[in-house]
């Protein structure tokens, strides 16, 4: 070491270089040198240290084995818990779907029974028609039929540089994001164009449904939906398609598609089936029947 260097630098570099170069414990070399001087030790002492050494190796092996089994026992533990939770979730969502199906089936049965009871009289038939129309409009019943499918999606992501890490990341430009208000406007335009039933990403809209943003996700009736957003509208396609395509809303989103790259596609569908709305409560009821029909319970 040259004398003008700071003392600390020389000690640390000395420590590091000795650590990197003399990996072997210097005691071995010293012991070898001593042995060279003193000659062989007596046999009794030799066998004693040998058995000690074997004991040490046994302990070392034990340590390795225990550490291995310990780690193994721990990792699958958390993995097991995760898998069990996953199984629980899957089982419960399957059960929910099953119950949902049963609910729809029972509702259809109730509707059939009501119809069967009502078609007996002229007045009943009128009531039955009214009920069916209301049920379709409120999303209580699943509906099938032709209509229009509007697919909206975020603009394709662009390369940009992350301001924090300096890495290039793919980001959807802000103007190219489909927002809750976009879906609201399109859904309202579809209602205005004569849609009889609408579903967003498979979620049937009831009159009280909400479409809103929470954080970065869009929620339809508190269930998240994601891009591409498929808005299915059942209605007479001969009226629905030209009316919606000619609407101010469709014109505006067509312009957005060209300006910002938002996905906006219309497709006529001959056969769609929309499930019933999952989440509705009876909030208001009115007895439209004449007193002769009698109160129902």
């Amino acid at each position, binding site marked *: 070491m040259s004398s003008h260097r700071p003392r600390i630098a020389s000690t640390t570099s000395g420590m590091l270089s000795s650590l990197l170069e003399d990996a072997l414990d210097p005691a071995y070399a010293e012991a070898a040198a001593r042995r060279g001087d003193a000659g062989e030790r007596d046999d009794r002492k030799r066998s004693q240290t040998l058995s000690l050494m*074997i004991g040490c190796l046994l302990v070392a092996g034990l340590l390795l084995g225990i550490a291995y089994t310990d780690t193994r026992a721990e990792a699958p533990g958390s993995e097991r818990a995760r898998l069990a939770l996953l199984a629980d979730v899957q089982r419960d969502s399957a059960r929910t779907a099953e119950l949902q199906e049963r609910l729809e089936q029972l509702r259809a049965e109730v509707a059939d029974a009501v119809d069967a009871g009502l078609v007996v009289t002229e007045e009943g038939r009128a009531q039955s028609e009214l009920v069916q129309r209301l049920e379709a409009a409120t999303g209580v019943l699943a509906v099938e039929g032709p209509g229009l499918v509007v697919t909206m999606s975020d603009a394709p992501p662009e390369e940009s540089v992350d301001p924090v890490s300096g890495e290039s990341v793919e980001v959807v430009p802000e103007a190219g994001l489909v927002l809750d208000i976009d879906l609201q406007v399109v859904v309202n335009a579809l209602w205005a164009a004569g849609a009889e039933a609408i579903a967003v990403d498979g979620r049937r809209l009831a009159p009280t449904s909400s479409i809103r943003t929470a954080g970065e996700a869009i929620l339809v009736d508190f269930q998240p939906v994601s891009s591409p957003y498929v808005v299915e509208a059942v209605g007479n396609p001969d009226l629905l398609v030209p009316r919606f395509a000619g609407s101010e809303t469709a014109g505006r989103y067509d312009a957005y598609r060209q300006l910002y790259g938002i996905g906006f596609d219309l497709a006529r569908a001959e056969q769609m089936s929309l499930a019933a709305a999952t989440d509705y409560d009876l909030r208001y009821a009115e007895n439209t029947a004449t007193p002769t029909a009698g109160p129902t319970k």
Partner: protein
Amino acid sequence: MIPALALALGIVLGLILDPTVPLWLQPYLPIAVVAALDSVFGGVRARLDGIFDAKVFVVSFVSNVLVAALIVFLGDQLGVGAQLSTAVVVVLGIRIFGNAAAIRRHVFRA
């Protein structure tokens, strides 16, 4: 030969017996493992260098494991346990690597 067998026997015993490690010993186990590995690699290298000494090995093994555990224990008491564990692992890891490289040079002559 016998030492290698002893090591293998220890591993097998550890795997088969599957002893539960008491909770208070849990933080020292990884450090003890690294220290033991360091001693074993050092011993193998010394053997290949032709300067192996059983007594040095025994003393270095016991003191390595104890000192490593002691450092971690002290660190735990003083609130720098994780950092000191890292320090021990780094230093012993460098030594293990150096000894492994020396063993490689002996075995493959490269």
